C-alpha cells in the first residue's frame, strides 16, 4: 500500500511488531532446539561416564591406603582408647563436650 510522507492507515498492522514477534518465536524455537540437543548429547555422554567417574574416585584410594600400612596398638594405648570412647560417650550424654 502506498504510504505518503510516513503516514499510514490506522488499521494497517505494524511491520515492526510483526517482525519482533516473528524474531522472538524463531529465537524461542532455536533456544529450545539447542537446549534439547545439548541435553541429549550430555545425557548420552554421562551415561557412559558415571562408572569412569566413580572409578576415578575410588581406585586411587587403594594404592594410597596400603602405603600407610597398619599400626599395632599397644595394650596401654588400647585401654586408654577404650576409656576415651567411654568418657566421650558420657560427656556427650551430659552435654559436657
Amino acid at each position: 500500500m502506498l504510504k505518503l510522507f510516513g503516514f499510514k492507515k490506522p488499521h494497517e498492522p505494524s511491520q515492526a511488531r510483526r517482525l519482533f514477534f516473528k524474531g522472538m518465536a524463531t529465537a524461542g524455537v532455536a533456544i529450545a532446539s539447542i537446549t534439547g540437543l545439548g541435553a541429549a548429547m550430555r545425557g548420552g555422554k554421562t551415561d557412559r561416564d558415571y562408572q569412569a567417574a566413580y572409578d576415578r574416585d575410588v581406585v586411587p584410594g587403594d594404592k594410597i591406603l596400603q602405603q600407610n600400612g597398619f599400626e599395632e596398638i599397644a595394650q596401654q594405648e588400647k585401654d586408654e582408647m577404650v576409656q576415651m570412647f567411654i568418657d566421650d560417650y558420657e560427656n556427650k550424654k551430659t552435654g559436657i563436650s
Partner: protein
Amino acid sequence: MKIKKTEQKITRRDFLRGSSSLGVASIAATAGLMANTDDAHAKTTWAEWFQGNYRLMTDEEKKEAAQRLENRYSEEFGKQVTVDTTEATDGVLFGYALNIQKCIGCRRCVKACVRENNQSRHNSEIEWIRVIRMEKGSFDAGKMDQGYPEDHGIQVGGNSYRPAGVVLEGQHYYEPDKVPEEDAFYFPIQCMQCEKPPCVKVCPVRTTYREPDGIVVIDYNWCIGCRMCIGACPYWARRFNWGEPNLPKEEMNPETHYLGNRPRMKGVVEKCTFCIQRTRKGRYTACIEVCPVGARKFGNLLDPESEVRKVLDRKRVFRLKAELNTYPKFFYFVD
C-alpha cells in the same frame, strides 16, 4: 464468492491482558494439580524440597518425612517399603573388628552390602566395602645374589625379599577363579565410623554428622553434593552418585532407615552406616552375617562383654592412619 472480512482490532492492551490472564490461570492450575494430586512422587518431591535438616526436625516432622518417603518408594518400587527412624539406643557405642588373617577375599561381604543397602547396581556400580588384594611378602634364599628388586629400590637382603602389600591399580576389581590365592592376602576397607570424623568437620551444610551410637550418618535430602567430605575422608570410604542410581525394583530391599539404606538420588554422597537399619534393632550387619570364615566381629564398645571389646582386650589390634587422630572405631586384628 467473495468473503467479506470483518475488521476486528486487537489492541496491545487486550493482548497483554489476555496473555497475563492465561499465565495466571496456568500457574493456578499447576499449583492446584500439584496440591491435589495422588501422585506420591510429585507430593514428596514438593515436600522434600522444603523439609529441614533431619537432625533439627521434631519427632513429628521426622515421622512425616519418613511417611512421605514410604509412600513414594512404595509407589516407585511396587512393594511396601518401610522407612525406619529408630533413634540410637542409650548406652550403645558401636565398634567393629576384622580379622585380617582370616579374610579369604571372597567378597561376599561386598555383595551382601550392595543388596542390603540398596546400592546402585550398574553405571555406576557402587560398593561401600572394598576388598583390596595385596601380595604376600616372602623370602627366597635363591635370589640372595640377584641384585636389587625392580621398582623397589635398595632393600636389605638384595632381591631375596619380595615386599609385602604391593597393590596394583585396579586390583580392587580382582576376579580370581578361587580364593584365597596362595600369594595374596586381603584387606577389606569401609567407613571407619571415626570418633573424630574429618568428614563431619568439613560438611558445609551439616548434613553428615555423628550419631550418639557412633555411626556417622548422612541426611541425603540435605546433601548438596559438594564432595568436601569425600576429599576429607582419609579412608576413601565415601561414594558419590554421579548419576541417577540404578536399583532394579525386584532387588530393592524394602526395609530401610532414613539415615541408612533408603534409595538415594543423583548428586548425593553415601557410605557404610554399620547397617543402621539392622544394628539399631539388635541385628548384625549384613557383611558379618554373610562372612563364611567369621572374620568380622561387632558389638558395643561400652560393654566389656561384647565381642569387639573382647577382641580389643585379647588380640593384637591394628588401625589405619593412627597419626591422624581420627580414632576409627573399625579395627583390624590377628589371632
